Structures are given as structure tokens and as C-alpha cells.
């Protein structure tokens, strides 16, 4: 049976210009991530992990090559269309949570739904469900400053999943958390993957993450250096990936 791919990266190169210097953040990378997988992109600082994540999330453009997410090629999309595409297909989680400080947990989670045609009552229902999934139904009216780091990251995850996106991309989601909170977040992401079959792509330095993911893509100096099976026993190793 043919396997469907959530993400297809085909000979992608990303070159940044920093003053007179050119930085080759990704160099001719090719890989495929099957649907409903929880994968990690790991590597040392400056290896191109975040660049790859940004390309998958459609917030950056490849210098050359092709990126397709959920079967849709996003490389050639105009900025306006890309914004609408992100709203529909991508849930983003950041290292520093990046919640809007003047909005409550409820309002932060509701933010992506403001871009949909849902009515107020429907939005409320979706937000409550998302906050329940992350275990913060009782913190809806709290402002970010009234939450712990772990709780803030849970709210950020609720914000990422509230629109039921095709893919959740997480950039160092445990990077700013203590060990206990980091474990909780990794468990939560695993649960989202197992229960709701969300494809999750996570950039991380955290070696504990290997225990939770199906596949680890290792980048080094912008090149895909290896693909390893994660220590999670629940799923087989990623198929179809190639460097």
C-alpha cells in the first residue's frame, strides 16, 4: 500500500544573505515525513533545524527546491495565499510560548479561530475543547503572567491545535522548561499524535525527546546527516525518507 506523506522536501536549499556574507542554512536537503508521525529534527546549533521548520510552516521561502505539505506545494504560493494556508494547515508552537500577554488563555487560543467563519458560540466550543485536551480547562480566564511556563506552553499547544491543523510544528517546545514540565509537554505532544493522529514535527536539542518520537532527522551544517528510528516503540521508523 502506498504511504501518504505529510511533508515532502525535495532538494531544498536555503541561502541567507547577512551583509556581504552568504549563509547556506540548508543545502540540497531531501526528505519525506509520512502522515500521522511524530518526528524530531535534531542537530547542533546552526545546523539548519529551525530553517527547515520555518520552510515546513510556510513562514520562510526556499532559495531553491520544492516543499509540499499535505500534498500542497507551498514553494510557489504568494504571501497572501500562504497566510491563509498557514491558518488552515499549520499549528505552531514556539520555545518561548509567545502568547499575547494582554489576552487570557481563552482569548489566546481563540486567536487563530478569528480567521475562520465560525460563530462566537462555535469558537467558544472549539477553544474549550482544545484547553480541555491540554488539561487547562480551569485556567481559561488566566492571563499568561498568571500561568507557569509549562502551563503557558500548554496554552500555546492548545492554540496550535484549535483549528485542527494538518501538521503541528514545534520549535524547541521544551527548551525553556524544567525537566518535569518538559516531560509533560512531550507526553502531551505524544498524546496528540497517538490519539488525534496529528503529524508533529519538532525541532529540539532535548535528548529526552528521542524517547517520544518515531523518527529523528539529524542535520549538520545544513545537510541531512542521518535518519534514525526514535526510541518510541509505538510506531515503526519513518519510511521513504531519503537524504
Amino acid at each position, binding site marked *: 500500500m502506498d504511504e501518504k506523506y505529510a511533508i515532502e522536501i525535495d532538494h531544498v536549499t536555503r541561502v541567507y544573505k547577512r551583509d556581504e556574507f552568504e549563509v547556506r542554512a540548508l543545502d540540497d536537503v531531501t526528505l519525506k515525513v509520512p502522515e500521522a508521525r511524530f518526528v524530531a529534527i535534531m542537530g547542533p546549533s546552526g545546523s539548519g533545524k529551525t530553517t527547515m521548520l520555518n520552510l515546513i510552516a510556510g*513562514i520562510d521561502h526556499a532559495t531553491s527546491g520544492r516543499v509540499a505539505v499535505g500534498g500542497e506545494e507551498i514553494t510557489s504560493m504568494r504571501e497572501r495565499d500562504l*497566510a*491563509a494556508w498557514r491558518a488552515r494547515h499549520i499549528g505552531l508552537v*514556539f520555545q518561548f510560548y*509567545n502568547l499575547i500577554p494582554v489576552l487570557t488563555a481563552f482569548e489566546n487560543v481563540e486567536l487563530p479561530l478569528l*480567521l475562520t467563519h465560525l460563530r462566537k458560540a462555535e469558537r467558544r466550543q472549539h477553544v474549550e475543547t482544545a484547553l480541555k485536551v491540554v488539561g487547562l480547562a480551569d485556567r481559561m480566564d488566566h492571563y499568561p503572567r498568571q500561568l507557569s511556563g509549562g502551563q503557558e506552553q500548554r496554552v500555546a499547544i492548545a492554540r496550535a491545535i484549535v483549528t485542527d491543523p494538518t501538521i503541528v510544528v514545534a520549535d524547541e517546545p521544551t527548551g525553556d522548561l524544567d525537566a518535569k514540565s518538559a516531560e509533560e509537554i512531550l507526553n502531551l505532544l505524544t498524546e496528540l499524535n497517538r490519539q488525534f493522529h496529528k503529524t508533529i514535527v519538532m525541532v529540539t536539542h532535548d535528548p529526552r525527546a528521542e524517547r517520544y518520537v518515531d523518527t529523528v532527522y539529524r542535520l549538520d551544517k545544513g545537510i541531512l546527516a542521518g535518519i534514525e528510528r526514535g526510541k518510541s516503540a509505538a510506531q515503526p521508523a519513518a519510511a521513504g525518507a531519503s537524504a
Partner: protein
Amino acid sequence: MKFTMLVLKNLLRSKRRTFLTVFSIAVSLFIFSALVSFPTLAREILADRASSLRLAVHNKAGVTYSMPEAYKQRIAATPHVIAVVPESWFGGIYHEVNDQFPNLAVDPDQVDLMWDDWGISKAAFEDFKRLRTACLVSDGTMKRFGLHVGQQIQLRGTFYPFNVTLNIVGVMNDKAPPNFLFFRRDYLEEAAGRPGFVSMFWVRADKSENIPQIIASIDEQFANSMAETRSESEAAFMGTFAQGYRAFFELAEILGLIVVLTIGLVAANTAAMSIRERRSEIAIMRSIGFRSGTILGLLLGESLIIGLSGGILGCASAYVILKVFAVGSPAIGISSLRMPPIVVVEALAAACLIGLLSAWFPARSAARQNIVDALRLVA
């Protein structure tokens, strides 16, 4: 509507800053509205007189020079003239030296023809013609001194060495200058020993298109006489008085604009600071799917609310202050002082412009910023 909550929450993010910005815009637009009201009102009054069929005939040497009353018959015989009313300045005071207002003596026989647009009742005109001590008083002066029709008042002469005792028979409405008092010239002439001179003549034309012809005829008649005349339309005559205030009016308008521009720059700086602080949040919003245009709209919306709030507050304050000032100061002829509607429109438009332009450049830049670069700022 669904973004309203977002806009309001962001507006209240720094309550002190929002309040101070609104307040500074309010103060600037208060000053603008108050200052610009004076020249605008003066222009409105002049424009109002532009359609008048009245002409003023005064001494060519200046309005302070007198003319023989005998000119009346010759002016009345000029083609297209339907009424002539000689007028003499009395310059009396009511009780105190401060209680001054223009009090003028006029011939009673054609006052109803001359000032039929000043809301004076037929009965008042009849009483004015019948009673030698009758006087007609403007609404502003009536209110200022708490006078009423039927009341007897005395004006103390300052230029003339005698007083006049007058009976109020009627009131002139707001079409008339707000502080005038007319009494009969025959009373003044008798008391003054019949000097036979007047300050000026009011002339009524039959049609507006004949006014230039009448002006030419009158001035030609009295050319090379002992008192040459200068005739002009009522609007032009009033404009001569307004001319004296022209520099003040221009200064008022320039000052008003400078204040608005200055506050506009301050507001722009505040908006730039506020938006710069939120660049990373804006990048987050864009990364979750908000379009640049939506972000720009939200930021401009915030700024527009601030500008408009300041504008409404400033306009309302100016409106109240001018109203209070007008009630308290009819002495200088400004009992009809108010904020003309056009000034309200201009002030609110200026408020909207301050709001939109102050935020336009930082908002546009933030809405178009590279998401990846902005997110890097967070890290």
C-alpha cells in the same frame, strides 16, 4: 466585529500611555477648534451679509468723519434706491464704563424697510415710529443686562454731553449684530442742538444686480464735495471691520495648524514605540495566519480610535468653552460665538488623520516585516 476585543485589549495594554495620547490629541484639537472658530465664524457672518441688499455710505475720509444729513434726499433720489436711513453714533454707556455697546441713532421712517430681516415685529416698528424715546435692542444686549421690552433705560453720553432716556419697544434677533441698540435720531438731534451731521447712511437697493450702479451713482454725485462719499455693500463694509482682525485670524489659523502638526508628530512617535514593542507579537500573529492587511487594519484601527477619541473630547471641550464664553461676553459682540459645524468636521477629520498617519508607517512596516527575522527577536 470579532476583532474588536483584540483592538480594545491592545488599546488598554498601557492605559497610561493611551490616556496621555488621547489627552494630548484632545488638547491640541481643543486649541485648534477654539482658534479656528473665530475666523470661520467671521467668514460665515460676512458670507451671510453677502446676499444683503443694503449698502453703507460713509465719508470717503473714513467712518469716523461725518456727513451732512442733507445728503439723504439726494441719495434717496438715486435710481434703484428704495430706502435711506441716516445713522449717527452716540457712544453712550449703560451703568458702568465697562457696559459699552454700539448705540446708534437712526431715522425712524424707513427702518422697517431697511432691516426687515432682523426679526423685529411689526408692532415694535410701529412703536419705534410713534414714540420719540423708543429704542430697539439686540437679543445679546437684552440678555446681558437682563432687560425686557417696556423697560426704561438711560444711556450716559460720553461723546455728547448729555444722557438719553429710552423705552425698549422691541428686540432684534440673531440676524442683527448681537449687541446693537437703535434709538431715534430726531431725539438725538434735538438734544444735541441740531448739528445736522450724520455718521453714515444705510441704503436699500431694489435688486442686488443694481448695487454696483447705485454705488457708482452715489459716489459720483458727491465727488469733489466737502464730504466725498464711499459706498460699499454691507458685506464689504463689515469686511472693512473684519480686516482689522485679519492678522489675528491668520495667526489663529496658523497656530491651530502648528499645534495639530506638533501633536501629530508626538502621536506618531508614540505609535511607533507602541508598535515596535509588539513586533514579535505581530510576527506570531502572522505566523498563525493573520494577513499583513489584517494586521495593518488592526493597528490603524487602534490608532484611529485614539485619534477620534481625542478629537471628540477636544471638540466637545471647545464647544462647551465657546458656549460659556459667548454667554459671558456679549459686550464685544460675540454673543453668537459658537463652534461652526465646519470646524467640528475639520477637527474630527484632523483627529482621524492624526490617528491614521501617526500609525501608518510603523504599522505598515510591522505588518510587512519578515516573520522569521521578527521571530528571531523573541529568541
